[in-house]
């Protein structure tokens, strides 16, 4: 599904050049649940951002279902995200001014073509993560765990082929973290491909494969029994 070929990402400020990713090659198959681990600043989030097409590699190629995304236009990448990707963030990133239902609807808003009844899809997504009763509430009225479940609902409402989760349990307590992991595993079992960045070894162990990154280099890729 995903193929990264010799991918590098460098950032240049006034005087300093920082290499966030260095010659990374990676293949992720349809239906995989991949956990990416590594210390802070090693390039995990950069890799996830490139996979999510909200950042571009400096060198190398990024193929998605055989399609090269490296040189695609901003508008094309935006449609790619709208149609195929779902994002889950550590700090939830729900829009403060929108209700939970409206936040989840954002996952459908920018898709082209007929979408049928958005309301029905939103309600179904909310029910899947157990926040249906909070539809009309605003994010600040929900607990952290509920907010993250709402964010997951937003990521899955469009039934994307790839879900990208950036430390989805980082801001949650153990119980809520476990609940989120259960939801992610359920989604994977239902066929979703998931790439998750995490600092938690126990959560990484629940993925089908674990990739370790150090100083921008991919140092290990280990398949795990779930």
């Amino acid at each position, binding site marked *: 599904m995903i193929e990264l070929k010799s991918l590098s990402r460098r950032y240049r400020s006034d005087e300093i050049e920082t290499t966030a990713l260095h010659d990374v090659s990676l293949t992720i198959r349809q239906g995989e649940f991949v956990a990416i681990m590594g210390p802070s600043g090693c390039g995990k*989030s950069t890799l996830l951002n490139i996979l999510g097409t909200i950042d571009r590699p400096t060198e190398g190629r990024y193929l998605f279902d055989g399609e090269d995304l490296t040189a695609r236009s*901003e508008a094309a990448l935006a449609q790619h*995200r709208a149609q195929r990707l779902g994002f889950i963030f550590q700090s939830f990133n*729900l*829009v403060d*001014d929108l209700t939970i239902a409206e936040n989840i609807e*954002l996952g459908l808003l920018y898709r082209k073509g007929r979408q049928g009844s958005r309301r029905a899809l939103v309600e179904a997504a909310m029910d899947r993560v157990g926040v249906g009763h909070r539809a009309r509430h605003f994010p600040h009225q929900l607990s952290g765990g509920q907010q993250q479940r709402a964010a997951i609902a937003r990521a899955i409402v469009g039934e994307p082929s790839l879900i990208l989760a950036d430390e989805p349990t980082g801001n949650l307590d153990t119980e809520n973290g476990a609940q989120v992991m259960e939801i992610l595993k359920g989604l994977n079992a239902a066929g979703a491909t998931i790439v998750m960045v995490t600092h938690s070894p126990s959560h990484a162990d629940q993925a089908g494969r674990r990739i370790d990154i150090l100083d921008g280099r991919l140092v290990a890729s280990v398949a795990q029994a779930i």
Partner: protein
Amino acid sequence: MLRSILVAFWRSFTRRPLYAALNLLGLSLGVAAFLTLSLLYRFETSYETWTPEHSRIYAAGVAYNFPGFSRATRVGAMGGLLEEMKADYPDVRGVRDWSQAVTVHKGAVATGEQMELVDPEFLDFFQTPLLAGDARTALADPGRVAISEDLARKYFGGTDVIGRTLDVTDSEGRATYTVSAVIKALPKNSELKLDLLRRLPVERTAKEQAWHHWGSLQLFTFFKFDRPEQARALEAQLPAFVDRRVGRTFGDDVVPHEMLALKFVPLRDVHLLDAKQRAAVDTLGVVGIVALVLALINYVNLATARAGLRAREVAVRKALGAGPGALRTQFLGEAASTIALAFLVGLAVVELALPLINAAGGLSLSLDYRRDGAWVAGVFGVVLAAGLLAAVYPAFMLAAFKPAQVLASSRAPSGGRFGARLREALVVCQFAAVVAAFVLMLGFLGQIRHMQEADLGYRRDGLYLVLSTRRVGVTPEQRNAFWETVRRIPGVTAVTASSNAPADDDFNSNSTAHRLDRGAPPEMATTLNVSSIGPDYFQVLEGRLVAGRMLDAQHGGDEQYNPKATPDTVTNVVISREAAKVLQYASPEAALDQLLDFGGRKVRVVGVAEDMRFYSPMEKVPARIYFFSGLPAWWPADWPITMVRYSGMDEAAMRARLETAWRQAAPGAPFEGKTALANLDRYYKPQRDRSNLFSLGAAAGAGIGCIGLYGLAAFNTSRRAREVGLRKVLGASSPQVARLLVGQFLRPILIACLIAWPLSWWALRRWLAQFDDPIGIGPGIFLAGAAAALAIGLATVGGLGWAAASTSPGKALRSE
């Protein structure tokens, strides 16, 4: 997408009411000021559009080129111009309008009215809207009159009055006229006063000498052309026409069209023909635009400042597939919604404030949505377009945020150094406008006070003017009886009559004079304004003699009406100080006993009087020559105006006594009088009204500036909360931190002063240039303007700065 835009728009009001209120209030104030001044501008620039023929009609105008006389075009013509034009250009179409003061009698009550003597085709020519009657025939018969619906209600209690009669005294005597047409009320923005119209008795007036007096502005003559180029083509022939028709009337060596230029003034331009008036209206239009621009600057400032707070939302939307186009549409849509709401609020403010604005500006503006719907929609279009243009920057700035960077950062982006500089530059612009407005306001008020308090050369208080003595139909005996009675009123110290009075220029006659001690070279001639004065004239006005003596009945040579006069008879005159100057006498004393030729009449200067400003403060005090007559009661009907000097009595009591005296002396004629102060106010009121309007606009601008400054200060202070905490941890005191926070907003205000001062100096100098006696521009008003802006700025941000500085460091450090 539309739903998403409306939801975001609605939530911005419900979730951040302060920001939304500041934004809406600023925009609404700007829209209200823009709407009001647009209404005013439309009112002032759409005079006479009530007639469907307005684009085809031109008024005859004259520009004189006499020495010492203004060369500005004046609307008006001698009575016989139309006949002379028709004789040379048979296809020309025109009508005349000659206003006359008449008396309408209803039972024992006599009321003064203005009658228009017009050509019979006048109503049809203008396609005057009628409630009843036939425009083509209504004035064919000299015994008929057309009246306005207001006059119909006043005298008959309704508008169904065709065939009813009116009893009128005019210059031809008292007669009864049958109403043949009722004219619909014309809008207030019309110079034509079509209340009472009768056919112009050309068969009589054409025999009068003044009817063909080239140079007189006896009445209004209107011409109609199908196309503008026809008007221009005929206008090009007018110099030759003037030369042909005037012949040698102006002298053997004079080319007539060089002395007198005939013009066709488009009907719509008549109202604002005076360049100073036009400039005043244009200035108010510009103030409206500036108010809107200030409000839009506010919008941009607040929107870009708040953009940082929406950066994370933008990043999330982008991650979820929103392209830059969709985001720009979203933010521009939100801006359009805000502007639309601000327009509605602004419209409501205008509706509520119109009575106040009308009172302050001496206006009669109104909004009628059935009539003005298209105009309101047009103004909305302009505001929306300007608003969207202003919203482009914040929309593009927001849409350009990089989601990966924003999501990785713990701080919201602020638009970078460029964004901060832009916001500061915009605040500088706003406050420059506020400082300039304050300076100009102070300048205007200073000049208006100066006009009302300056020495006019005579005492303007305690002076009553009675205009009734020159009303048609009033006999010399009635005038004399009135004056005798008035002299006996306790408190009246002196009474006189003259052809001119303060702020009364109905009788305005000028002629050329040259010194006989220098021969008679035409290039030495100058124009003098004539005043005919009765006994005690200078005593009543408390005018000052500079040299020589006053005119009186005791000196035989002072009387201007001498039945035994020959061409060599010399009449004694007094001239004004300005006249002595323009006649180039070395001093006022040097003018004494000198002989002048004045319009072909030999006169001797026996006195020089101080200049007296009777007319507009915007006009130069004319060089004047005074002719004396001991028997003003026998002057021509429209000359003698009565001036009464009184003391120890208030204005109302004086009026009551004068009115009683008038009713005894002339029971069949209405009383018409007012104080000199009230009469002079017609010159000051337009300035005062415009100054009031400008002040309202400036106050709106200052309000908008303060709202913008407050919004920005609130935003920046909240962004610096963590820094405040750190500084306090490191030992800064609350006053030190408050000074730091407030100081950052004083800098743009001080820069604004440096920009505003030269601009306002230039604008004020230009404005003052229109006055004959302007105030000096000292540094005081610039410092006062800056101080006012600074005080407003301090009051706006001081509280915020102090509140932020007083926050405990622990709480401040936990922010963000």
